[in-house]
């Protein structure tokens, strides 16, 4: 619904005598932001340092390396495509799921709630192992692999791993949004003649819009950063399943720290850009 900003009291600490208090409160925020900025700057500066023999900056030499550029370019595309797909599927599934959790009298609600949150809490590597085991060692998983969709060591495996870990974010955010929508709105809509579905689509969903968008963003952000489960389930095959974090790992393992750091900087830039874009589209959210 959005906060009512018609209240005149928006800055309770606006007076002159409050200045020291304002500074005190802002200090942790400033420190945290400064930390992030300093870490990122240090990485960029290190990359830009010149090579002791050639004098060219490492950054430039990385860029000149066609093979590396190709690899990272591919990783970028793969990361974006897979994470967007994961986030879209997760959000689509989250909408009815969150509505059920929020509004319907679901049996064993507490248990279901806990299970939904599990993938968030399990360490990603463990989740990856568990997924791999499921798809290759269990009857149901094997049936899926053989008759529905091959998952292990495929590109679809990337989406499956990302979805498994990150979709809980979507459900949580959308549920929080629905919790905040007064159920009476739907009741009134229905009394005016709307069917349950129509009331949901025209009333509840638009009112929960910012939660849906927040859920999408968080899921996407988590999905694009996934590493261990993707390595376990999809493998880390350059040119096929190397998403950006895996590319960073591969380069680190080959001693090419510069390439890994370049990927770090690249991911930060993408994340920043995409976050800004999504926020423009979504307005205020429940987490932001």
């Amino acid at each position, binding site marked *: 619904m959005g906060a009512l900003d018609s209240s005149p009291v928006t800055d309770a600490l606006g007076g002159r005598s409050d200045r020291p208090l304002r500074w005190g409160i802002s200090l942790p925020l400033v420190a945290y932001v400064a930390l992030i900025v300093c870490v990122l700057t240090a990485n960029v500066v290190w990359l830009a340092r010149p090579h002791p023999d050639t004098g060219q900056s490492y950054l430039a030499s990385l860029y000149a390396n066609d093979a590396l550029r190709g690899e990272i370019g591919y990783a970028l595309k793969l990361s974006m495509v897979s994470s967007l797909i994961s986030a879209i599927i997760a959000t689509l*599934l989250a909408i009815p799921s969150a509505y059920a959790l929020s509004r319907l009298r679901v049996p064993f609600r507490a248990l279901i709630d806990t299970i939904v949150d599990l993938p968030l809490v399990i360490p990603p590597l463990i989740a990856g192992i568990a997924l*791999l085991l499921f798809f*290759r060692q269990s009857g149901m998983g094997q049936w899926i692999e053989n008759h529905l969709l091959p998952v292990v060591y495929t590109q679809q495996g990337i989406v499956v791993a990302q979805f498994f870990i990150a979709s809980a974010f979507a459900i949580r955010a959308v549920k929080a949004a629905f919790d905040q929508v007064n159920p009476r709105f739907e009741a009134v809509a229905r009394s005016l003649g709307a069917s349950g*579905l*129509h009331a949901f689509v025209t009333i509840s969903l638009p009112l929960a819009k910012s939660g849906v968008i927040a859920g999408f963003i968080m899921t996407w952000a988590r999905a694009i950063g996934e590493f261990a489960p993707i390595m376990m389930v999809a493998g880390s095959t350059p040119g096929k399943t190397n998403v950006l974090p895996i590319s960073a790992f591969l380069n680190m393992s080959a001693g090419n720290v510069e390439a890994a750091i370049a990927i770090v900087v690249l991911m930060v830039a993408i994340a920043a850009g995409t976050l800004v874009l999504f926020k423009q589209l979504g307005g205020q959210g429940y987490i932001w």
Partner: protein
Amino acid sequence: MPNRAWIVPTLFACGVLGILLVGGCCRLLPGADQTCLLPTAPQSATEAQSAPAAGQSLFLYCGAGIRKPVEEINALFEQQTGVRVEPTFTGSGCALAQIEMAQKGDLFMPGEDWFMEQAVERGRILERRTVAYFVPVIMVQRGNPHGIQELDDLLKPGVRVGVGEPKACAIGHFTVKLMELEKIPWDELGRNVVAHFATAPELGNAVKLKAVDACIQWDSIAALYLDDAEVVPFAVDEETSSAITLGVLKTSKQPESARSYLQFMEGPEGQRIFRKHHFTLDLEDPTFPWDGERD
């Protein structure tokens, strides 16, 4: 505002349809592990030129540290035989777990013999060959500021030493062995040790990033850092060297192709590529001391 109740169920149906389509198209393409998000990207010039034979592809679990020679070998192999080798570069422990659980794949090259031994013990290996060796050397920062010339110099005060974690990686395990053979008490070395590392590349990165001053490292991995570090070789011993073994997995559905890959790697072309990437092929003739003649 028009009646838009149909949007959500339609979106939903589209989403589900999309998933099925993505899955469905995979069934139609030849071969099981297909690419439905993006087409595969060729990894080198030679690979780009070759046309893969439909359905022929070998899956290789490979240690991350031996990526460079393996990728080159794969490209050449594909060019010559039309069989594509698809590697996945993971930590070796990870690969072992994957082999156990996925029960899928053709080849295993852990890069640390220890893991190969474990795989053999579990009965996963059909046949194996040694294709190269890891020989330990001392790796120091560029310029060798502490003037380290031999193993005992690692005990010099003020030298920050990094070691591989003996339980996590072979280099760590072999470092312990080396110290025993050289009769250097582990505790004495321990006074200079600042950190343990889980893998050999991490150890190398630590030297490069100047987090440690020196470490004992595998020769070919140290060779990755020749821009930022220096190698101080010492006497090579069979006991302290690790064989790099390639094994054909019992779960392979194409054991013949896998065997031919094995032979290729062992053969002159494979060996030439290993040498090019500073791998020791013969314990009599280690990579270091580097005399600049190899290529």
